[in-house]
């Protein structure tokens, strides 16, 4: 090998996008080699749409403002499946730590915040792939989705933002808890409440007031609202939703960047 020349530190505006791209690329490579997870993760959304959705579609029990219930539900299930993927993806950082990979990543010239942002967006990539599966399924079940490619692209951006937040949430918890067996329990403990305390299954208006309050601080509600606006053209508050999601992502990145060093010890 030729004589070693030390590579200069790239400017920060190049380093961060570079790292994010690297982690996303690696995620796609991993997915290409191991597709089973994609399929097993598709089971739950299928159940929600096919069984829950179709049943309630017939009951007309939930007031959706004239929208068929299945159409109302589809964006909710899309957001939910993205969230599940992201939360368990974030938890995997503890596996990487136990397997020693995290140690090696932390010794590369990658600032901790860049590592976290990279992982958060890699979780977004995984979610997108999952979401495509749910989108196709929704169309098959007769949901009327938008045909505007810009809106679908917008929906992907919203999913990536939501997933980045939930990945940061679980990486933050991982940085606090540190033990992998405890984390699985916590992962399961938070996903269902986040799902139920959101507007994914029913409109906020019919919730009891305490649940409405929870729903208002739950980023998943804003993700669902944005997706409904974009995908099925339901009334929504797109800019507020995007603002809340962006804010949540920034807070999540800061929190998990501060805690990830604990995983190295």
């Amino acid at each position: 090998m030729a004589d070693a020349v030390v590579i200069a530190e790239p400017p920060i505006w190049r380093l961060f996008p570079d790292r994010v791209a690297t982690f996303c690329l690696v995620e796609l490579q991993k997915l290409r080699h191991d597709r089973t997870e994609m399929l097993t993760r598709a089971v739950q959304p299928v159940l929600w749409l096919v069984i829950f959705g179709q049943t309630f579609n017939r009951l007309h029990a939930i007031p959706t403002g004239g929208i068929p219930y299945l159409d109302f539900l589809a964006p909710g299930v899309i957001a939910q499946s993205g969230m599940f993927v992201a939360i368990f993806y974030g938890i995997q950082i503890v596996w990487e730590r136990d397997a020693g990979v995290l140690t090696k990543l932390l010794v590369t010239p990658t600032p901790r915040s860049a590592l976290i942002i990279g992982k958060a967006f890699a979780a977004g990539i995984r979610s997108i792939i999952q979401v495509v599966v749910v989108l196709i399924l929704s169309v098959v079940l007769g949901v009327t989705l938008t045909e505007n490619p810009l809106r679908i692209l917008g929906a992907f951006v919203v999913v990536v933002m939501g997933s980045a937040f939930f990945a940061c949430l679980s990486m933050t918890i991982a940085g606090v808890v540190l033990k992998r067996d405890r984390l699985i329990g916590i992962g399961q403990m938070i996903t269902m409440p986040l799902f139920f305390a959101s507007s994914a299954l029913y409109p906020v208006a019919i919730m009891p007031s305490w649940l409405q309050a929870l729903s208002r601080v739950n980023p998943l509600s804003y993700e669902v609202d944005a997706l409904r606006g974009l995908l099925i053209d339901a009334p929504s508050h797109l800019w507020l939703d995007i603002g809340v999601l962006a804010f949540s992502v920034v807070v999540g990145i800061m929190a998990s960047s501060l805690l990830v060093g604990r995983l190295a010890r």
Partner: protein
Amino acid sequence: MPDAGPALLIEGLRHRFGEHAAVDGIDLRIEQGEIFGLLGPNGAGKTTTIRVLNTLLPIQEGRIEILGHDVRRDPMGVRRRIGYVPQQLSIESTLTGRENVTWFARLFDVPRKERTVRVDDALGVMGLGEVADRLAGTYSGGMVRRLELAQALVNRPRVLVLDEPTVGLDPVARDGVWQRVEELQEATGMTVLLTTHYMEEAELLCDRIALMHLGRIKAEGSPAELKRELGPDATLDDVFRHSTGGSLDGAEGARGIREIRRTRRTAGRVG
């Protein structure tokens, strides 16, 4: 521009976990181009020393310079100059060997034009050229370790830091790793710092060694020097017993044994 000064300079390093001082005041100077071994039983403080100098742990007390770069003040500069292989066998088993190495090339900002060449080089040097496109999950323990060396080399580091590079490997795989490290050092002149609790490893590979026990350095010198001081038939184990009162194998408590088991388990899983 080449870096001046010693490859590694440690002054008054101390590191505590709670009450326990894992590293209890050590000074060390390693010149560029040396193969240097930190020899000691499990729990001697070798791994903690490594994890402080490679920026994984904060410096609590003391000072470390790598090629003239202060570890506390310029951690990124230090990371760009070292290659690190942890004790535990750790690769991404759902990526191919080549993808594993390319990943690290990107994380070290190897320019795109050079990336393919450097990745091929690193894989080739480690004898993994033919299996590069197989999933790393199918590799044996020895191949995984060599893949990790390739990952660490893709950056063309000036200082290569290996923490117990052959723990959990069978004798053939161990010889393979030793041979590659030696060839590599000869070809590039890089500095190699390794920790080990195998005497033969220290004796065979290292120009100089430091004996570490309970967080302190008890003796330092070339293997021949250290043995000569004790008499004509002395072994490194004798030297160790003489300077610490303990033995290289076995003197240590449950923590060390657990660590070895964990590494062996990992070796079994990924290999």
